[in-house]
């Protein structure tokens, strides 16, 4: 195979050949190559197909803005396929497998290219026009086809097996971009002693210097100087350099998101190594030294493989030692491409011609061209290309008075284009900094700044290495100055600098029909100059509309190459200056970013916090099934061999009601309310009266929002005159504490009360069932828990099994019940002791499902299940919990609001299905007449529904309009098939309405 590698050029390690595959063919490159440079070294330009027309496309850049050469890569190990990787950024390593995209059956012969022949159908706005009619086709025909065709590359099919890391970082000065201006800024700031971070998305630092070895700085060749500068920065302990690190977004107050690629360039990835790391960096000062992006030229056939950016060709030659063609034509409107021609000629290429759209260029450039025997055509346009899979010739015409003259064909194997340079201001735009139009240079430059940021070098329109170095040093010094320090002025002596100038333009003039030209503006999304003009003709006035109508700039490169050309053409079509047409907004991320980088450690076991109780491990050992409740995982039920949930729950309910059940209630929120004004505070927060609650007694507490709706509930025990042990629902704990703190701090700061969460200080074990006391009393010391001494709704401090305890007698099941709080570390030990001793009563561990059934049988509500934020105490049938004589409490005033006292509110009632075996579906809607015409009037919904083993039938609770006045009425609830199930309205206490079961002696 022919090699395009040039001896003595480039920075790749020719001592280390690297073998990889592209579309199953094996290629060789060298360490330091990208996939693009290695393929070009093998003469391969064709690297992809475009999105819409499936046109063959070659690589056009050498950097991260590459729109065409997108590849899929497969790294070692299952599931490590990734689409849409830019071949210009992916470094090669032994064993890398890469493939082209958007083609079938092959890259060279792609059936999808039929779209190219049908391009008249696919013009701007084709989505909005083509698929309009008939309307019924949208769901069945158009959308499925579009969905199938849409998307670039193929999605990975496996769960991402890789590890992603994240880190916070704080520094004085962050410098983004390590070209000459970035390095100069780093030297200035670094020498001043500040904490400096210098990042670059490339695998090595240097930026333009890597492509311009002939320049000399401070008497040294560029690369020697670069090596010295890197060594100096590395010696400074206050400077951190990070390569392969992309600044993806610039957020408020100098927060920058950085994504560092760690292992995508390594063949043997160490076990446990993260693939990428997201840095959330906060800098006091930021220097943006991102340089400029070369603009393509817009002419017919400008997308044929082999047509590429001149600056890219220069990079491939000087950094990678690769000639992108042996007989290139240079097409330009900027001096910079002339140097590409000179470097290529000096490296042995036969440069066919330099075609410049300008009529005049500097004499020195013409002399240099002549010296190398390169023909020059000034004042020319390009009007077409020949070749399909690779360019064979460029059609050029002289232009006079704006008219293209007779065409000539220049045979070539590459066309190297430069339509000017666009300062790279994407990150600056993220800050909402304003962009000022420079009418001379026809570029946007940074204007008003909203952050502590400095822009240096080509990013603010400067050109040449001397200017970039000087400006970078100045920006670095300014950053130090803003920090209150002082940086020494750094000066650089630059010789053989390649300064230059140029112009930018709309699509090039042509002698052919402009309507037939395929002059591409956006390569990836296949948007042509004609599309943009069509959009303007069809009424789009703002560039934002033109963008969305044509999809110009909406590809994965976010229009880095296309936006300015699109704007220039649109403003020409509108007859306005560019700033009057606008500029589309750049948004993060700067380049496509993996989901993994954003997820970081949050996958698998660390996807989110899973809170576990001190008794969780016992439940796991005893075969519990778990369910998530808020962030907790709670034992749901304890199936025995052969049991499903239904059977297990029926057994757990029966055992608890007949003898003894044990339940882990540790997740209940607990708040210590303490201080001389604790009673007053409780009176103001909760609906219930607290003044007369004696020490050692407990009461059900109901908490409303100020709007009168139920927020939370729980049993509250009085430990001392000035101390309450408040319990909350599991999910409500943080919310309730926050609400209490809010009132205490901001409404009643005069109250002497303090709140402390003790949720996790205590493990809480509930014992329920007629044998609960018999089991418990043998463990209790320091308290008499007999029925007389320790009645229902009591609390006492004692020891249980030797552990200090707050022991409650309460019941959420309707059975004799106790809740034992012990310091969390003892929770499991106590549970095990109770479990062992409880064997004589066939003690049964039960989970949350049984707890739900047992409480529903008693009509106890669960806040958040039977209430939904629109339910008042009266609606829930617990108006008794309101202290009628209290002058005020949170939510009291709202209980008199007109809507709250109006008739027809949804009220909580019981439902008993006519067929006792039928269990209603929770959440199902309720109607009073299933025969009414549709849409039927929904009058409520089922909030709780269970099989009750104790009652031998199903039970349910529901909120229903005017429910309290519907007792004995039959309502209808659909089953899973929509068949209405009749059910009769009842009260909500299904089991032991007299409460006799609490009275166990």
């Amino acid at each position, binding site marked *: 195979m022919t090699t395009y590698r040039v001896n003595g050029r480039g920075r790749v390690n020719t001592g280390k050949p690297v073998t990889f595959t592209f579309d199953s063919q094996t290629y060789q490159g060298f360490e330091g190559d990208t996939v693009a440079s290695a393929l070009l070294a093998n003469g391969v330009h064709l690297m992809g197909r475009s999105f819409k027309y499936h046109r063959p496309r070659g690589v056009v850049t050498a950097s991260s803005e590459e729109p065409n050469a997108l590849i899929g890569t497969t790294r070692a190990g299952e599931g490590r396929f990734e689409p849409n990787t830019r071949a210009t950024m992916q470094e090669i390593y032994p064993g890398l497998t890469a493939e082209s995209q958007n083609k079938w059956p092959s890259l060279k012969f792609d059936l999808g290219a039929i779209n190219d022949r049908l391009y008249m159908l696919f013009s701007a706005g084709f989505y909005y026009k083509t698929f309009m009619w008939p309307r019924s086709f949208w769901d069945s025909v158009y959308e499925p086809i579009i969905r199938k065709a849409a998307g670039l590359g193929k999605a990975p099919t496996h769960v991402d097996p890789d590890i992603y890391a994240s880190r916070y970082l704080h520094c004085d000065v962050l410098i983004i971009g390590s070209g000459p201006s970035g390095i100069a800024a780093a030297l200035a700031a670094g020498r001043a002693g500040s904490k400096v971070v210098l990042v670059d998305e490339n695998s090595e630092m240097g930026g333009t210097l890597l492509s311009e070895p002939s320049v000399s700085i401070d008497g040294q060749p560029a690369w020697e100087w670069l090596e010295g500068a890197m060594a100096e920065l590395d010696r400074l302990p206050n400077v951190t350099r990070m390569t392969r690190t992309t600044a993806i977004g610039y957020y408020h107050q100098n927060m920058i998101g950085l994504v560092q690629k760690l292992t995508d360039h390594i063949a043997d990835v160490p076990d446990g190594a993260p693939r990428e790391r997201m840095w959330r960096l906060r800098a006091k000062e930021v220097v943006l030294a991102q340089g400029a992006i070369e603009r393509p030229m817009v002419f017919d056939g400008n997308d044929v493989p082999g047509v590429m950016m001149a600056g890219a060709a220069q990079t491939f030659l000087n950094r990678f030692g690769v000639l992108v063609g042996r007989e290139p034509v240079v097409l330009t409107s900027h001096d910079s491409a002339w140097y590409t021609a000179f470097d290529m000629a000096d490296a042995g290429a036969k440069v066919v011609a330099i075609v410049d759209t300008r009529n005049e260029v500097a004499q020195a450039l013409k002399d240099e061209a002549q010296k190398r025997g390169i023909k020059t055509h000034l004042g020319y346009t390009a009007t077409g290309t020949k070749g399909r899979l690779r360019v064979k010739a460029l059609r050029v015409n002289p232009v006079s008075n704006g008219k293209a003259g007779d065409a000539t064909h220049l045979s070539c194997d590459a066309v190297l284009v430069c339509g000017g340079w666009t300062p790279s201001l994407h990150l600056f735009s993220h800050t909402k900094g304003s962009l000022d139009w420079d009418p001379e240079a026809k570029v946007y430059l940074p204007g008003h700044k909203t952050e502590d940021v400095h822009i240096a070098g080509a990013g603010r329109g400067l050109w040449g290495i001397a200017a970039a170095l000087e400006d970078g040093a100045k920006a670095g010094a300014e950053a130090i100055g803003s920090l209150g320090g002082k940086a020494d002025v750094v000066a650089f002596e630059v010789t053989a600098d390649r300064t230059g100038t140029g112009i930018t333009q709309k699509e090039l003039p042509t002698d052919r029909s402009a309507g037939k030209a395929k002059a591409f503006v956006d390569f990836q999304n296949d948007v042509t100059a004609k599309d943009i003009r069509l959009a303007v003709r069809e009424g789009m006035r703002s560039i934002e509309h033109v963008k969305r109508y044509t999809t110009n700039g909406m590809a994965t490169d976010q229009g880095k190459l296309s936006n300015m050309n699109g704007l220039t053409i649109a403003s020409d079509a509108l007859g306005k200056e560019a700033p009057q047409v606008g500029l589309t907004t750049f948004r993060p991320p700067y380049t496509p970013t993996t989901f993994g980088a954003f997820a970081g450690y949050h996958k698998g076991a660390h996807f989110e916090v899973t809170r576990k109780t001190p008794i969780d491990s016992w439940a796991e050992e005893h075969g519990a099934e778990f369910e998530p409740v808020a962030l907790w995982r709670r034992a749901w039920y304890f199936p025995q061999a052969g049991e499903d949930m239904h059977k297990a729950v029926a057994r757990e309910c029966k055992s608890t009601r007949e003898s003894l059940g044990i339940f882990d209630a540790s997740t209940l929120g607990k708040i210590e309310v303490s201080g001389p004004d604790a009673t007053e505070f409780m009176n103001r927060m909760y609906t219930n009266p607290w003044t007369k609650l004696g020490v050692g007694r407990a009461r059900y507490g109901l908490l409303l929002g*100020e709007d009168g709706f139920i927020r939370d509930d729980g049993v509250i025990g009085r430990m001392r005159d000035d101390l309450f042990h408040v319990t909350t629902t599991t999910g409500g704990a943080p919310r309730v504490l926050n609400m209490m703190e*809010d009132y205490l701090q901001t409404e009643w700061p005069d109250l002497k009360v303090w709140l402390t969460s003790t949720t996790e200080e205590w493990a809480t074990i509930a014992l329920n069932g007629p044998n609960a006391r018999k089991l418990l009393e043998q463990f209790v010391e320091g308290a008499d828990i007999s029925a007389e001494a320790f009645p229902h709704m009591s609390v006492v401090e004692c020891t249980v099994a030797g552990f200090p305890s707050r022991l409650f007698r309460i019941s959420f099941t309707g059975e004799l019940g106790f809740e034992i709080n012990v310091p969390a570390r003892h929770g499991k030990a106590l549970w095990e002791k109770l479990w062992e001793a409880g064997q004589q009563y066939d003690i049964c561990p039960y989970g949350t499902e049984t707890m739900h059934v047992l409480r529903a049988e008693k009509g106890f509500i669960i806040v958040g299940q039977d209430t939904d934020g629109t339910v008042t105490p009266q609606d829930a049938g617990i108006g008794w919990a309101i202290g009628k004589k209290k002058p005020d409490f949170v939510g009291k005033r709202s209980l008199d609001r007109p809507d709250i006292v109006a008739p027809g509110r949804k009220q909580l009632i019981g439902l008993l299905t006519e067929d006792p075996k039928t269990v209603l579906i929770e959440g199902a809607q309720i109607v009073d007449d299933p025969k009414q015409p549709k849409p039927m009037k929904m009058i409520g919904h089922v909030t709780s529904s269970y099989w009750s083993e104790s009652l031998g039938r199903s039970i349910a609770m529901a909120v229903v309009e005017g429910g309290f006045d519907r007792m004995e009425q039959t309502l209808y609830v659909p089953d899973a098939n929509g068949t209405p199930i009749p059910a009769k309205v009842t009260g909500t206490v299904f089991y032991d309405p007299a409460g006799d079961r609490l009275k166990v002696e």
Partner: protein
Amino acid sequence: MLLIHCPYCDDTLPELEFAYAGEAHIARPEDPSKLSDEEWRDFLFIRTNVKGVHAERWRHINGCGRFFNALRDTVSDRFLTTYKAGEARPDTTDLEAAV
């Protein structure tokens, strides 16, 4: 992620330590029972939704735990100042001019 100055800690800290808590300077009436239905409705539900400088409450929930007040420009998302609960809204004419 914003940096927020906690007036109690007298320190400027990451937004992750803070929680938003609604509009500021809406005091709970001394005696709600004296309010008309309309007045009570306004207290409960009517908020200003400012475009510009908004007085709002934050809580340093993962820090010192205090509720405090802030003036934030809802257009630029910038904090002009923060101050302790109970303090009067400061004059920020100068700060606003600088935004």
